[in-house]
């Protein structure tokens, strides 16, 4: 069910009123954002991530490609929506799923985690979430949940997320 405008404002208020919580979730519902646009953006992101990892890792990573996206899908499809896990939790969950039989080695997960932490970690963290939440799309109801990176200013509250 589409999130109401009031609910969106409540989430924003919750984040802005508590800077420590902003790391968790700042979500917005885009009313007219088409699924095709979101899919295209997510797929581009996946390809970029995969390309970077392929370049950085030895031959064992050759199984990357759709496998990586499939693993993400597998790992987070049924995730509880009542919690907002950290990046480490995300990667741990993904790692567990992958170790159950995926051809993608845990080294891939570590490499991706290292990539996130090595670069601007917050940006990459949100990018990773964006990648993951693409699979939360409800195609029947056109419900989208897009995790966005925003810049926040404010007197005395200069949190920067990118």
């Amino acid at each position: 069910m589409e999130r109401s405008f009031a609910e969106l404002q409540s989430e924003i208020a919750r984040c802005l009123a508590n800077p420590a919580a902003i790391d968790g979730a700042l979500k917005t519902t885009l009313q007219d954002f088409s699924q095709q646009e979101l899919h295209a953006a997510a797929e581009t992101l996946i390809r970029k991530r995969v390309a970077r990892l392929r370049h950085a890792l030895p031959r064992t990573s050759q199984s990357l490609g759709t496998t990586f996206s499939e693993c993400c899908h597998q790992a987070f499809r049924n995730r509880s929506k009542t919690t907002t896990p950290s990046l480490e939790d995300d990667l741990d969950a993904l790692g567990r799923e992958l170790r159950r039989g995926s051809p993608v080695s845990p080294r891939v997960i570590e490499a991706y985690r290292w990539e996130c932490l090595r670069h601007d970690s917050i940006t990459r963290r949100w990018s990773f979430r964006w990648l993951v939440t693409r699979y939360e799309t409800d195609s029947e109801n056109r419900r989208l949940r897009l995790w966005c990176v925003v810049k926040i200013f404010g007197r005395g509250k200069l949190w920067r997320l990118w």
Partner: protein
Amino acid sequence: MVAGAAAVVAVDAEAAIKTITNLPHLGVGFGFRDRYHTDVFVHRSSIDFLEITADHFFRASQAKREQLDLLSRNFTLIPHGLSLSLGSAEGIDDEYLTQLAEIVDVVNPPWWSEHIAFTHAGGIDIGHLTSLPRTRESLEVLGRNIRLAKAAIPTPLILENITESIRYPGDRIDEASFLGDLLEENDCGLLLDVTNLYTNSVNYRFDPLPLIWRLPRERIVQLHFAGGHWQDETLIDSHSTPACDEVWSLLREVLAYADVRGIILERDEKLPPIKEILSEVDRAREMYLQARSNKKPASCEG
């Protein structure tokens, strides 16, 4: 609710546009702060009108009520609300509105002002003005709340643009169109905060002039201007310093474009001696009077 002052006309659908266009020209002043309580009377001739923060007079003590009475008898006061939260989807606070209405009733201004923003949601007080996504839904929420506010306070309402702490990826309407639609649909004037506009233009990297020229010029009633400071490569509208050259330039552009009724200098932090305040007020007045005397068309098409 409000006694019939010369500048206040009955709210009527056909007369709606006349309400905004018939507002008086007040001149230039500044936002009243307690520190300047004595100074405003000493320098009375240098101050055309004052803006008061309405919230400061809610549940007023006897001393505060006397202060308001004294100020209103000696100055034209424009009440400026902070927390009505016209952009709140959950609605506005009845108690806050009632208190605001009482202040407007006491002061009897030609107009009053609030912000295009929300300050609370879900039971949480954000603590500062927060921007809205520029969507049809936001306009509907604002319209709904403005109608309630106008039912309680028939005095003409002008709305202020804010510094944007958030820009939403889902914005569907450009800012000039959003403001234009908001003002036209709700018959409100615009309190164009030139510093806020400049701050946004710097932080989000756009040219503010085309935006100004697309605003409905007949609805630009009052201006705010102030100084800010830089922190972490971000411009903050802190109201803590004199206005910068770029703000003065924008002020000049707006004055050439629209028949502005009043200009208020805002200073909230690091309050300087009154002479520094009045220096900026005098400079703004010079520009204001020059613009009025020019009676030339705007510098570009509106």
